[in-house]
């Protein structure tokens, strides 16, 4: 029973103290709503009821911020104010784009554990990306591994279960060189977090036998106490297995692993700031082989049609899984039947534990024996722990004792809506890029600058990490993360075939650029969407078959400035998705990425949006890679280069905070992408590379390095905005990070076709692929510069020093 003051009589302050002591992360209005509910019943809540409510209502599970009402105010440079009230931010931005686009291939969006699409009416693809930031900050190896384990279960729990075929991972870390900086308040060193996360994901993903095919790593000071770890999984299932239902009387069956005291309060702890002194018991302990066995058995049971619904046991453990499945019907669980790792767990701990590798099934009673036999044949635990009721009540028993008796309606809909306010105004950053040192000095710089950018860790080769991940298991990986003859080139997107009988497949990519947030989170988000879509276009996909996932990460949203950035980013998501016709199918947010040290000093991460994108490919044999293919082929630049150095890597390596942040003009880029997709479909393109961090300079260098061939490019012929052209700034042409650009290789015989398809659009032939192993450019002032590939390679491969 609950210790402490009588809940019904306690003062608001006493209730708040109770919430803090038990790490419930419940707000005052939420505590009041709970008290009112129990006052009506005339009894105190039990320990287990309070815990169940706290986790069901947690930010992690309920997305209270994104679903609350928000009064948003923006002030522009001139002090003009613009106000807007969002009744439900998620519904009015991300989900609204999907509603309005009405793509017929969206099969299940924002409903299930993952978004599900189907392009051929027969096979469906489930895709989900999640974060595991708080656990990874505390215990990087376990936190990152179970993060991946969790998202794999999301896909196993999508529809009646999808067969995972690909993992993606994106990490944001502090720069590794930061090791000499004294650690504040117990945060781990950047290097320790890096190694722990990389190997945690490696050991879980490799052992699950799911190829890790795409990812990114971003190094920035802003992540020094709060790393971000995004793990994603895509899976395939028959369209006929998308629908799930729970019927009263169905047995509640738990499969997979046993329950221990690991991961108690995971959901509630990740709904609050990180601070020192958090017990490590909030982080789960993973065992990928237990999950692999469970997956093998589950997919067989799906084939045999032995269950009617499935969901994963993630945050909140059984309380969340059973609670969600029984949202309509109600449910009754006997906790004494739950197998434990060891004795001594309190009933509420069994109910809340986030012990990994478990799923919950709704099984028609007549199938129970067959299901148990199937799981036992694979040595996987499979236990009947209760049944779904028909009266909408959630009842949990431990032996004879009832420890939870709640109406499902109150549990799921009883939380008071949050009211928040948010604000945003731009920082004062000079728009003009400095002209320090006059022309001569600057020209010398361009050569050096490219090498510096190539060796900056976010741009530099990630081969050290990528090779530790099995990217070929299952034999479906048609475009691998590293491409080119020496397997050195950074591919723009992975391409996976769905089966061995047909040539259809999916391309997977991501977009992320938290550095732009400082300038404007709107353009940060717009750039992320564009980068993800662009990466897919670069391998041969087309815009009309692209589905998106969002993952918002931010600091403490109770801070209007933090929330203001999130609101602006969400608004960009709507605008760009709508303009591109690319619907969001699922998403997630991770807030409270704030670190509070012993002295109470606070630090929020930069507002970060990861966009993960999936595209259907009719024929994976037409996929295109980014490595330069053949001397004599022409090099085209597609897309307009603008004076947009704000947030660029040029600025990063030169320590310059100035310039305009890259914007996006979808009315210009959308037709451009369509033209490129068509050119690729027709086979006119032999290589194509997305132009992002480091601009044209890095894109050209990477293509040459990957193909082990030289490239000659005359920048005077590139499509340039007047502002770049006017002051003949070669550095702007090479390093501006304008969105919507590609470097494209076209054999001379297709030159005319290619050009005619791009008529009236910013696309131009600037040079050719050459035998000599060097990158050669002609600058806007007419000066020629050359880099030996060996020098470029040395800079690029030496950038990440683990």
């Amino acid at each position, binding site marked *: 029973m609950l210790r402490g003051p009588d809940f019904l009589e306690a003062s608001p302050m006493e209730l708040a103290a109770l919430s803090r002591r038990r790490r419930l992360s419940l707000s005052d209005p939420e505590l009041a709503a709970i008290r009112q509910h129990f006052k009506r019943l005339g009894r105190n809540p039990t320990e287990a009821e309070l815990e169940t409510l706290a986790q069901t209502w947690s930010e992690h599970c309920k997305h209270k911020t994104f679903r609350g009402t928000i009064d948003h105010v923006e002030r522009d440079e001139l002090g003009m104010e613009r106000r807007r009230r969002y009744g439900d931010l998620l519904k009015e931005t991300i989900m609204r784009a999907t509603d309005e686009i009405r793509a017929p291939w969206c099969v299940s969006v924002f409903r299930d554990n993952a978004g599900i699409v189907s392009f051929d009416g027969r096979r469906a693809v489930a895709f989900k990306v999640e974060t595991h930031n708080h656990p990874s900050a505390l215990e990087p190896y376990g936190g990152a591994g179970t993060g991946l384990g969790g998202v794999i279960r999301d896909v196993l729990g999508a529809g009646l279960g999808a067969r995972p075929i690909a993992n993606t991972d994106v990490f944001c870390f502090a720069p590794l060189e930061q090791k000499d900086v004294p650690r504040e308040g117990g945060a781990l060193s950047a290097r320790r977090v890096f190694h722990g996360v990389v190997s945690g994901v*490696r050991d879980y993903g*490799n*052992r*699950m*036998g799911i190829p890790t095919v795409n990812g990114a790593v971003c190094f920035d000071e802003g992540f020094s106490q709060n790393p971000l770890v995004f793990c994603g999984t895509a899976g395939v299932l028959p369209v006929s297995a998308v629908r799930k239902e729970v019927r009263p009387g169905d047995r509640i069956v738990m499969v997979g692993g046993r329950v221990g005291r690991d991961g108690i309060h995971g959901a509630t702890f990740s709904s609050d700031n990180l601070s020192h002194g958090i017990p490590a018991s909030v982080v789960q302990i993973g*065992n*990928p*082989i237990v999950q*692999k*066995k469970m997956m*093998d058995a589950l997919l067989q049971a799906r084939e045999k049609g032995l269950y009617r619904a499935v969901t994963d046991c993630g945050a909140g453990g059984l309380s969340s899984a059973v609670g969600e499945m029984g949202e309509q019907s109600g449910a009754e669980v006997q906790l004494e039947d739950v197998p434990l790792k060891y004795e001594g767990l309190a009933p509420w701990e069994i109910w809340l534990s986030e012990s990994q590798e478990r799923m919950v099934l709704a099984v028609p009673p007549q199938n129970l024996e067959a299901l148990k036999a199937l799981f036992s*044949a*694979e*040595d996987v635990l499979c236990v009947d722990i209760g049944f779904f009721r028909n009266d909408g009540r959630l009842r949990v028993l431990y032996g004879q004792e009832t420890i939870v008796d709640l109406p499902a309606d109150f549990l799921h809909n009883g939380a008071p809506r949050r009211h928040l306010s948010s604000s945003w105004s731009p920082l004062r950053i000079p728009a003009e890029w400095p002209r320090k040192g006059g022309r001569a000095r600057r020209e010398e710089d361009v050569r050096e600058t490219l090498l510096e950018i190539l060796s900056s860790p976010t741009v530099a080769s990630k081969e050290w990490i990528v*090779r*530790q*991940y*099995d*990217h*070929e*298991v*299952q*034999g*479906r*990986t*048609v*475009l*691998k993360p590293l*491409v*080119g*003859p020496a*397997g050195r080139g950074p591919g723009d997107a992975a391409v996976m*075939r769905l089966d*061995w009988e047909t040539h259809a497949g999916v391309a997977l990519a991501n977009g992320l650029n938290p550095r732009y947030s400082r300038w404007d989170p709107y353009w940060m988000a717009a750039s992320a969407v564009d980068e993800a879509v662009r990466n897919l276009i670069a391998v041969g996909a087309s815009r009309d078959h692209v589905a998106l996932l969002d993952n918002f990460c931010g600091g403490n949203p109770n801070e209007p400035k933090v929330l203001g950035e999130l609101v602006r980013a969400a608004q960009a998501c709507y605008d760009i998705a709508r303009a591109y016709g690319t619907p969001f199918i699922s998403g997630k947010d991770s807030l409270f990425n704030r670190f509070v040290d012993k002295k109470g000093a606070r630090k929020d991460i930069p507002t970060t949006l990861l966009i993960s994108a999936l595209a259907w490919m009719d024929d*994976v*044999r037409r*996929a*295109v*890679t980014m*490595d330069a*293919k053949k001397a004599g082929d022409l090099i085209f630049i597609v897309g307009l280069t603008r004076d947009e150095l704000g947030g660029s890597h040029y600025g990063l390596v030169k320590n310059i905070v100035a310039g305009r942040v890259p914007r996006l003009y979808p009315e210009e880029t959308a037709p451009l992408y369509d033209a490129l997709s068509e050119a690729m479909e027709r086979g006119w393109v*032999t290589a194509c590379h997305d132009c992002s961090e480091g601009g044209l300079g890095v894109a050209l260098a990477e293509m040459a390095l990957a193909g082990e061939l030289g490239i000659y490019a005359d920048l005077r012929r590139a499509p340039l905005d007047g502002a770049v052209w006017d002051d003949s700034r070669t550095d702007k042409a090479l390093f501006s990070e304008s969105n919507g650009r590609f470097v494209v290789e076209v054999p001379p015989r297709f030159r005319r076709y290619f050009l005619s398809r791009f008529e009236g659009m910013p696309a131009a032939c600037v040079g050719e692929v050459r035998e000599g192993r060097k990158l050669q450019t002609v600058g806007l002032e007419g000066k020629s510069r050359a880099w030996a590939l060996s020098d470029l390679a040395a800079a690029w491969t030496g950038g990440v020093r683990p």
Partner: protein
Amino acid sequence: MTVRAVVLRCAGTNCDEETAAALRRAGAEPSRVHVNRFLEGGRRLNDYDLLVIPGGFSYGDDIASGKVLANQLSHRLKDQLDEFIARRKPVIGICNGFQALLKGGFLPGRAGVSVSATLTDNDSGKFECRWTFLRTSSGKCPFVRGLPAVFPAPVAHGEGKFVPESEAGLRTLEKQGQIVFRYVNERGQSDGYPWNPNGSRGDVAGICNREGNVLGLMPHPERYFYPQQHSHWTRIRPLPEHGVGLQIFKNAVRYAAQVAS
């Protein structure tokens, strides 16, 4: 005749589906069967004509990679597997399957009679997934017929370093024609890391038993059975109809058919 191939799986096996797909394309009729079915006695190895133990992390590679499965094979299925091998039926162990056959004493040959060897941690100290080249030796193994002298192949493992009991042991294996594949560069020469991805002694990538019908290799032929699995197929024109790896499965299927008839 139909060649019945069994792809043996257990907890942690993860290359079974694509191995079955490659076998099917090679003309066999594959079934993926859990080792428990053989341990219970519901199935017998001799119900099949061809055995493949695919890659993965059997039982989590606890103790050492392939070790627990190796113990099941050498203690509980020894008679069945010995009989299978004695009948000259083909057995292929890939990656984790190779580790299991080696640690179970089925490769290079019976313990006490043959050279002993093991597969241990890569010199790099970490799991690595990369493409390299293999040079085929025209030794005892009948599954290499028609393979190019040098061909590309992918590896993905953390414990693939082949270590024989001694230098003399390595020479014995060579003399007996038991070394089937060696890691080389694209010109077919021994060239150290990364071509030899794990530091294997003698660049050994795959070996067979003295009779030649049991083959173990660390590289993954099932990851190159169709042309678009190649690491840089977008540069290869014209593309071959099949990946080179398929030839190994085709040879094994043909051999199995001969043995059975």
